[in-house]
């Protein structure tokens, strides 16, 4: 099988409201950044482009088509799109390269969530007969999950606050983070509940932004001469859409994807886990069977800033950055999609 590597990555800052910046203007700076890391002129210099976004976020039908304005599609390029997090666009691009249809690919994800009421917009992902008409928002669904974990003794509110405290602390060293600071667990627990048992700080913020990545065969990566990290495993699994038919205290799909991606074939120096709620970081770390010495979300994770439709790709990008900076030799990236961790993707990255 062809060996594939991440060769370039860039992410915008996570901001609560990108204001007068449209999707093209969000995407372009990230594309320019990955081009400059490799000396490329435009998307014409890669073999395939794949993006991830969701038109419902900003309420503009076919908004993803506008993304093509950022690419320079003259003459026409090979392009595709997933209506989900760009981590799945990465997956599609990897398949394309593995099949021999491309040697390199540009992947980008973007989300402008601020125009709508994100937890309510996302409620419409639920099944349209039984749940979507109730407007069961994402925060409430996560809160139902958190109580199951709490009351089964699988974690405590103290554990959840500790996740938040570490995220805020780690985010101090992350210039792209939206929320950062030094908070004690006691301070966080003193805050009122938002949707009990969740506090506001247990929930990732709503963020606008974009991320872009270039992957290529190892041969192409060497030809470009840029530092790279090999993607040695990737897999994704989906569970039933009905949260009540799943064990919400575990993530079976994450366990399966981790096993199939080969997470346990070696030590994991760093793990980037897409956990939009504090209790989910604990749940997912267990499902990934991470060792105590593994560094989890060292940049603060998505509790410090959550770019819907780009955060999953950003998890892979963060692991890539740690590896090429020499901070880690082997890392794991996790992405999630769908209501309450329905669909999970796990990738393993290793140094060149």
């Amino acid at each position, binding site marked *: 099988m062809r060996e594939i590597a991440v060769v370039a990555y860039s992410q915008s800052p996570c901001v609560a409201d990108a204001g007068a910046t449209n999707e093209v203007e969000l995407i372009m700076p990230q594309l320019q950044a990955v081009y400059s890391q490799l000396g490329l002129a435009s998307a014409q210099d890669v073999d395939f482009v794949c993006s991830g976004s969701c038109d419902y976020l900003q309420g503009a039908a076919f908004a993803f088509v506008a993304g093509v304005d950022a690419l320079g599609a003259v003459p026409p390029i090979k392009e595709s799109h997933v209506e989900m997090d760009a981590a799945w666009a990465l997956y599609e691009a990897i398949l394309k390269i593995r099949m021999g249809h491309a040697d390199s690919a540009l992947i980008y994800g973007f989300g402008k969530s601020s125009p709508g009421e994100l937890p309510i917009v996302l409620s419409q992902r639920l099944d349209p007969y039984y749940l979507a008409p109730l*407007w069961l928002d994402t925060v409430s669904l996560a809160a139902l999950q958190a109580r199951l974990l709490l009351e089964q003794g699988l974690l405590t509110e103290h554990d959840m606050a500790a996740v938040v405290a570490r995220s805020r602390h780690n985010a101090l060293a992350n210039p792209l983070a939206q929320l950062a600071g030094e908070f004690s667990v006691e301070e966080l627990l003193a805050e009122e509940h938002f949707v*009990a048992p969740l506090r506001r700080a247990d929930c990732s913020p709503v963020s606008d932004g974009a991320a872009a990545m270039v992957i290529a065969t190892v041969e192409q990566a060497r030809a470009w001469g840029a530092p790279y990290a090999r993607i040695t495993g990737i897999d994704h699994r989906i569970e039933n859409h009905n949260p*009540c*038919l799943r064990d919400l205290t575990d993530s079976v799909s994450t366990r399966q994807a981790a096993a199939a991606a080969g997470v346990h074939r070696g030590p994991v120096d760093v793990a980037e886990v897409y956990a939009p709620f504090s209790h989910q970081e604990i749940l997912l770390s267990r499902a990934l069977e991470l060792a105590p010495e593994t560094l989890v979300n060292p940049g603060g994770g998505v509790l410090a800033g959550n770019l819907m439709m780009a955060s999953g790709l950003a998890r892979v990008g963060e692991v890539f950055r740690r590896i090429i900076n020499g901070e880690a030799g082997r890392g794991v990236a996790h992405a999630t999609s769908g209501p309450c961790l329905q669909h999970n993707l796990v990738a393993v990255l290793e140094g060149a």
Partner: protein
Amino acid sequence: MAAAELLSQEFELGFTYTRSTGPVVGKFLTGLRDGKVYGVRGSDGRVLVPPAEYDPVTAAPLTDFVEVGQEGRLLSWCWVSEPREAHLLQQPFAWAMVQLDGADVPMIHCLEAPSAEAVTTGARVSISWADERQGFITDIRCFTLLQGAAS
């Protein structure tokens, strides 16, 4: 280049869909309209409420409908102190995972309660029907707490 003025405009996006129910969802919604709750028996014998069209384990079509109770037990809940505009209840309420008597999995709906303090996991709850029922999930207006000890 001059700094751009922030030009914005509020709008409402409407998807005015009419959906076919198919026989399984249709059976459930017809039941709601008539004041009854139907589940369906899965391949492993579990009664799924609301009914799934296909078995979650084997993917076989499911047709063995079972009427279940209109009371049940609260498995999990969360407290919405500030209801969102879209929510069905506009006073503080709980979202509830309720396992109806005779069902083997919970369902999610709203729970009307005077305060978070009044709600405990394991509490007995009952369906409160909407005044006018039309064959929709909101024919169940919400759940309400039953007096008495938790089961």
